[in-house]
């Protein structure tokens, strides 16, 4: 299991997944917003969401864990 982390400081604009969802490789799971810019975060590999650590509107720092995933085949 691995945590996927924020690439920048900002607030969670859109949370696109819930626990149990499968994300394809390169699939977007969260969109952060900072300084009037939205940055989609995509999964580096096919995975299943085990845990979600953030809610829409939360502020996160660069490197903070956003979701926990289990790598799929």
């Amino acid at each position, binding site marked *: 299991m691995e945590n996927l982390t924020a*690439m*920048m*400081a*900002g607030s969670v604009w859109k949370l696109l997944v819930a626990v149990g969802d499968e994300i394809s490789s390169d699939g977007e799971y969260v969109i952060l917003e*900072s*300084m*009037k*810019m939205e*940055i989609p975060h995509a999964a580096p590999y096919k995975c299943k969401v085990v845990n979600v650590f953030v809610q829409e509107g939360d502020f996160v720092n*660069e490197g903070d864990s956003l979701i926990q995933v289990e790598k799929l085949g």
Partner: protein
Amino acid sequence: MIKILIANRGEIACRIIQTCKKLRYQTVAIYSEADKESLHVKLSDEAFPLKGNHTKDTYLNGEYIIQLAKENNVTAIHPGYGFLSENSDFAKKCAEAGILFVGPKPEHLEMMGEKIRARQLMEQLNIPVIKGNSHPIQSVEEAKEIAFDIGYPVMLKASSGGGGIGMKLIENQEQLEKEFVATQTRALQFFANDDVFIEKAILKPRHIEAQIAADTLGNIVFLFERDCSIQRRNQKVVEEAPSPFLSSHGRKKLEEYALTIAKKMKYINVGTIEFLVDENENIYFLEMNTRLQVEHGVTEGITGIDLVEWQFRITFGEILPIRPHHVEMNGHSIEVRVYAEDPKTFFPSPGTVQHCSFPEVEGVRIDTHLYDGWVVSPFYDPLLAKVIVTSKTRKDAVQQLQSYLLSVRIEGIKTNVPFLIDILSTKGFQEGDYATNFISEYQKVK
């Protein structure tokens, strides 16, 4: 006693306060919670807090700002750029409250605020616009038909958009299907208006804009052009005046178009008309910004004019201090925008500025609100500073700017300074041979 309320923040609020001090106007600042310790608050004579940090509660809260202005006997409100600067409703409400709005008349803001209406006006004036539709598109099906007629690639744009937000390059029908609703949604969210339209994408265009100023008596002057083709995510990064690309014939044409538009509109105050110029120097109207531009400093560099002072004088009904065709251009001026962002990914980098220094050097102008300990918040755009160099020749200006940027120190947050130095060192930039795709091409090569 003239008293000016500055309805803005950051570097531009500080820059406006400077001119106010020169003209001996009293200044009133407003600030959000995150901006409590901001430099513009420290520099102004008076300052009033706004509740919260969301822009709609703070710098976009026109009603409260006007109330503050009334209570404090403010003569005029300077909106800077962004926020309320192009909001015709706000300009109207200022007038109703008996407060001057430092900018054009509400009808000018309205005329140019909606890109579709602006295009229609250009068509009337026989000023070339890029092929596209001139009414809001209702559905994906309609969008597909229009894009097919015009031919891919096309640009999908929010009618009320600006600053590169709400526009998307579309290469094929599949991408159009994917992006149409997303662009509409974004347009609604950012601009409270989900009208979108499509136009032909010109692939290696230069972004060249004409600066004009017009007084209440109908005098209009052309203050030359700025080349703002170096952009990332459709936002300007490097700007220069004059354009290294435009021929004297092209400049004449640009002037003619700009003056025709300003005259037809009966425009008053300073304004910028943005054009796209293709490889064959065909000039197309893009949009008009009915306000002060971020990059106005390079025009000031080559003309010696203080555009903010002109804005005030025009607002107070004075005649333009220079007759048309008597403005002289001296030397070459280049500006770089220092952003709080990762120099490789361009991701925003808010945080605390532990230390910063911009050495004082002749010919270099720094517009900034930074100081040691300032916290760059995630609520606002990432602009930290503008470094503007004016020299006799373009070559000198490029060289001086390169060596100056090596002496700039900003610690605690990531900035794009290393990236700016790289850009200035490229052969393309040094030779003045670049288009709006310059940065994306440069990144591909890296």
